[in-house]
């Protein structure tokens, strides 16, 4: 394992600590999906994307990331803060009154790093396509990344957007689906089955890759592979297989921790599994 990957893993440990502490701090929020997507967001912000924490909304000459499944805001906020977009200490204000760190990501309070509000599901792919189109119009060769939950694919707007992007050769876009098979009311297979996701995205005209989302080496490898496939006339979809709650044993394996905060004992048990690597906020 390269030193690079080890460093990313160490960062991921700290981000996971941040997540459970943030959710514990306000006794609300969504730890499950946040923990599952930690490796992906750490890889994006600390390795893969070219981005500038001296935040500029228009992101000219920068890669851009959109979080469409806004409820996993804890991981997004932690990664943004740890990347230097805003003070790490501000994570303590998550979901509290008079904070920029809202329950779901918002631009309204001008939190650096957030370019669109999300929370009401299914809207982020359209936004990402619009931003990718703007990059093409501007002659900007950087890329647009987006992340979506698998349950989110039950929203119809996703498929409007999925149809649009290949038809219009939006090939500067890498869309990742967090396939953890869980949603609020239970397993996706039970609530509303998603079927063969590879076949669906391919049928819509996307170039589809698959990724082990909680294996940092594979995350980096597949993201780099995805980047190598941009500019070839097709948008790219990554089916990222993750475990909801990854990194905290008792939060894994069910939908139970989708939107529940740990109590004091559970927090201590979680933190015992997550070494402090960069210093807590």
């Amino acid at each position, binding site marked *: 394992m390269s030193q690079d990957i080890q460093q990313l893993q160490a960062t991921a440990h700290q981000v996971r600590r941040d997540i459970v502490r943030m959710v514990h701090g306000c006794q609300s929020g969504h730890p499950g999906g946040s923990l599952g997507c930690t490796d992906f967001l750490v890889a994006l912000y600390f390795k893969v994307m070219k981005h500038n924490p001296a935040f500029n*909304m*228009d*992101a*000219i000459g920068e890669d*851009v990331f*959109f979080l469409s499944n806004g409820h996993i805001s804890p991981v997004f906020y932690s990664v943004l803060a740890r990347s230097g977009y805003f003070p790490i200490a501000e994570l303590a204000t998550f979901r509290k009154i008079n904070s920029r760190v809202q329950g779901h990501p*918002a*631009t*309204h309070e001008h939190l650096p790093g957030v*370019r*669109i*509000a*999300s*929370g*009401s599901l*299914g*809207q*982020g*792919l*359209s*936004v*990402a*396509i*619009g*931003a*990718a*189109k*703007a*990059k093409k*119009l*501007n002659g*900007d060769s950087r890329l647009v990344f987006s992340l979506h939950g698998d349950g989110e694919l039950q929203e*119809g*707007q996703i498929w*409007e*957007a999925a*149809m*649009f992007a290949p038809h*219009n050769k939006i090939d500067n876009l890498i869309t990742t689906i967090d396939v953890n098979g869980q949603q609020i009311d239970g397993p996706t297979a039970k609530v509303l089955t998603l079927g063969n996701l590879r076949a669906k995205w391919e049928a819509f005209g996307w170039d589809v890759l698959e990724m082990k989302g909680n294996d940092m080496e594979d995350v980096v490898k597949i993201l780099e592979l995805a980047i190598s496939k941009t500019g070839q006339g097709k948008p790219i979809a990554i089916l990222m297989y993750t475990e909801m709650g990854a990194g905290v044993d008792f939060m894994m394996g069910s939908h139970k921790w989708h939107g529940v905060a740990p109590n004091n004992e559970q927090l201590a048990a979680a933190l015992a599994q997550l070494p402090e690597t960069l210093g807590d906020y």
Partner: protein
Amino acid sequence: MKKYTYTEQKDTRSGFGAGLLEAGKRNPNVVALCADLVGSLKMEAFIKEFPERFIQTGIAEANMIGMAAGLTIGGKIPFTGTFANFSTGRVYDQIRQSVAYSDKNVKICASHAGLTLGEDGATHQILEDIGLMKMLPGMTVINPCDFNQTKAATIAIADYHGPVYLRFGRPVMPIFTDADQKFEIGKAWTVNEGKDVSIFATGHLVWEAIKAGEILESMGIDAEIINIHTIKPLDVEAVLKSVAKTRCVVTCEEHNRLGGLGDSIAQVLVQNDPIPQEYVAVNDSFGESGVPAQLMEKYGLNDVSIVKAVQKVMQRAGK
């Protein structure tokens, strides 16, 4: 009564098409999106001139609004085009979250608003859109009255930074405002100065108010007619200045009486200067198929209805 004459009649949607072309010429960041209604929205001239700045979304309005929000990230000024019903009710949450709450510089341009859409009937005749849009924090709501004003408004909103709802329609109407007018967002236009009643009108009802003013003049009533093209932000100063003189009000709009211009004016009156007001608006119902003029008569949205409302409100005011 100031005389308004016209030599030409056109639809307000054509004013939008002309304005969009002009805005596109003036600013290279102006882009247009349309959900399979290019001809109805009169976007052909823009598309011919700037094919690379036009995005055909297909029949997918939610995706269109989301993409418009995304296009602003990178400095584009997107104008979305579809019918008013599909521009608002169908995509309310997309506008709310991705545009209004996200402070995005999107111009939502909506044709075929109201009853004057005509024969297609109530599925397409939205009468609730002004209310839906004005309730969104930060949203500007504009309903111009003729071809020239719609063209000027379209050019003006490209220069304004922030989300805008621009509402216009299908019927061919007299062109009675100046071709070279400067459109000021949020600034009421005094169509006629008068002393007996204040008639506040928006959209297609402005021409009906002018016709009503002529009838009222023949009855010895001196009506002040004010065009409220910008429903939000409302020109409160102009409203209060007029009512201070006239002491009674009629509001006119091609919209449900709930949530439209009338309610915006009523809120100003009740908080500042409570005086009698009558509504010329659709009485909390859906529309139906028919020729636009028949519908406007049946639902009480024409010059005759305005005259009746004026008589009633003046009586209530003890005049």
